[in-house]
């Protein structure tokens, strides 16, 4: 596969790991945070931790849009969908996330019309083909996904498709990074920056991290070679005492971002004054909602939403894991009460959640870890 295989080439990988070993100062312990859940997934899927020296620690960040959604928002979405003649559509990742009364998939088994879509435009098409139904699209994602939702809404409006609305849970990445940096528990040396969000917002928005916080940040791709090269670039900066924004993912990320995508977002969305993030409380200006001209396509305005806040079970430590304060295995519920089959929180369900990544790809490799109870 082009643009994939070359970036998984074992020889190139070993060149990169060789350089990492050469550059890493053995007297230092490095903590690099990968912000984006896609990077967490890649790190585990490709076993990249095995390839790094032990003094480089990868800390998982909160860049998993499913994981950071508080349970109450799932319940809100489901409650809208309970109405007559409503079809709820969402990406596959949302389907097994637990709400108070069960996940969307469990609701589907009980008769709710819930369907998986692979694109917001699929949801719009569904609405077009089924005029007697109202189709709601449960929108999630960072800035990578928001432009596609925006474009779809612009089309819905232009074509006068009224039996369609969006339950908008798009969040923005910078406030999350800021919250990490402000958090007293954290000590991060540098960041592996989100690759695909950056195709939309570009690299400029990260400059304050380098300038004000003096932390290097490298915008990285998702193949093994990309992540490893980004580590090389971070090590070089640290060795030279530098702190700047660099673009490792040049083949895809334009420094200035995607103007058309940003324009579509500005046309359709505005920032909410604040939004609750699982485990991180309310963060201001961190999420999107539909602007007034699109009120008719805003599921929250067309339908009443209970807006109940549901706190995670006390024993669940989703928030600390999201912030990177705890490793998944350090959460008391990990592997026992909370498994991918019986998830307590979204981090164990979403393929980008660090708990799921760790559980699925790593933890049974070590014999010293707790034996997992597999059957009910």
């Amino acid at each position, binding site marked *: *596969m082009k643009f*994939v295989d070359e970036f*998984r080439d*074992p020889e190139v*990988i*070993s060149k990169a790991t060789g350089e990492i070993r050469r550059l890493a100062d053995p007297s230092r312990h490095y903590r690099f945070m990968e912000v984006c*859940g*896609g990077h967490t997934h890649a790190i*585990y*899927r*490709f*076993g*990249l*931790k*095995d*390839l790094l020296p032990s003094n480089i620690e990868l800390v998982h960040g909160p860049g*998993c*849009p*499913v994981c950071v959604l508080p349970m109450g928002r799932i319940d809100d979405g489901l409650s809208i969908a309970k109405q007559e003649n409503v079809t709820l559509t969402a*990406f*596959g*990742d949302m*389907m*097994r996330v637990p709400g108070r009364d069960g996940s969307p*998939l*469990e609701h*589907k*088994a*009980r008769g709710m019309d819930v369907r*998986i879509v*692979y*694109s917001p435009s*699929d949801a719009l098409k569904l609405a077009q083909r089924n005029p007697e139904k109202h189709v709601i699209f449960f929108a*999630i*994602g960072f800035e990578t*996904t928001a432009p596609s939702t925006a474009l779809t809404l612009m089309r819905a409006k232009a074509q006068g498709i009224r039996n369609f609305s969006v339950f908008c849970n798009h969040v923005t990445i910078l406030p999350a990074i800021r919250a990490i940096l402000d958090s007293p528990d954290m000590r991060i040396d540098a960041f592996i920056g989100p690759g695909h969000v950056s195709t939309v917002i570009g690299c400029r928005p990260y400059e304050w991290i380098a300038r004000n916080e003096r932390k290097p940040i490298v915008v990285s791709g998702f193949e*093994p070679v990309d992540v490893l090269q980004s580590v090389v670039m971070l090590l070089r900066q640290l060795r030279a005492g530098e702190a700047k924004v660099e673009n490792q993912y040049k083949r895809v990320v334009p420094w200035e971002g995607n103007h058309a995508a940003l324009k579509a977002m500005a046309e359709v969305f505005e920032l909410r004054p604040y939004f609750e993030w699982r485990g991180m409380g309310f963060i201001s200006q961190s999420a999107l909602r539909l602007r007034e001209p699109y009120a008719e396509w805003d599921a929250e305005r067309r339908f009443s939403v209970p807006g109940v806040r549901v706190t995670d079970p006390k024993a669940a430590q989703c928030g600390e894991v999201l912030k990177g304060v705890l490793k998944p295995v350090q959460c008391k519920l990990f592997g026992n009460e909370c498994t*991918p*089959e019986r998830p307590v929180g979204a981090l164990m369900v*979403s*393929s*980008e959640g660090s708990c799921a990544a760790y*559980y*699925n*790809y*790593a*933890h*049974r*490799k*070590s*014999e010293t870890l707790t034996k997992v109870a*597999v*059957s*009910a």
Partner: protein
Amino acid sequence: MSAPLPKVRFRDAQIEMAHGAGGKASRRLVEGLFAPLLFSSPAEPLGDAAHFNIDGTRIAMTTDSFVVKPLRFPGGCIGELAVNGTVNDLAVSGARAEALVVTFVLEAGLPAQILEAEVRAMAKAAADAGVFIRGGDTKVVEHGKADGMYLTTAGIGRPIPELTISPGSVRPGDKVLLSGPVGDHGITILLARGELDIEADLCSDTRSVLPLVEALARAAGPAIRWMRDPTRGGVATSLNELARDCDLGVFLLEERIPVRDAVRGACELLGLDPLHIANEGQFIAVIAPEKAEMALATLHATPGGHEAAIIGEIREQPAATVLGETGYGGTRVIDMLVGDPLPRIC
């Protein structure tokens, strides 16, 4: 005084689609509810078919049901699946299918033409597999149920003499053999549903694997420790079941696993793992190391076996776990399928 039955351990409140997907939930249902209450030796590992004695004659018996939408797809149809599926279950349990019976659950309104096409397909598949269909039953349900038709086949067969397979005979050092490329069937079905706007040159791999199994049995009989056909849940699920049943580790070299480009492409586009996708014409065999190369050569020399590969081996640790090596020193745990293969986008 007979021993008390094992207790029911199935705690799910209701049945979900996942319970039929072939992964963890399915296993939970079978092990936790059906086995304790229904099966006469609930403590034994569950295989693809049951082998038991009637008046000193050893027979093998199995059943399988087919719930497929659409009924016809590139490379096959539900009728073929119904025959091949049961023949294959028997084959990988170490038995040659002799006779099948079939149940039709038909939806009122199903055009007779469609039914006839399926019946003809079954007849042909049975002839190709060398098995006789000896009878069956028919029920009709209301319009709106049964997706056109549901089929169930039950098969009875004779143990293949050269084979004595069981998870208990698997040893560290044994090699894992795969008969051909994975993911063809499941992805074909997914694309055939037409909801995805994806086109690819793919077809289902449905076929009887009996000729390959018999060739293998003749060449390497006593060296074959265990076999399975990786249907729902895919290769990952079957190997996890093996790892659990024999309490050993399975170590795969992911680069050696044959996957067609189109399957790889579709899986990348949808965020699916080929190892979790159903196959209908493949089997996995665990073979003693000294016979593994010869077994592979035998498959290569048998029609339909040219894409077989040795994909890994059995190791002592980590027990009950399937590990995959990515090809550049990284390893990952390959888990059993959880839920339905829900495509990722995120």
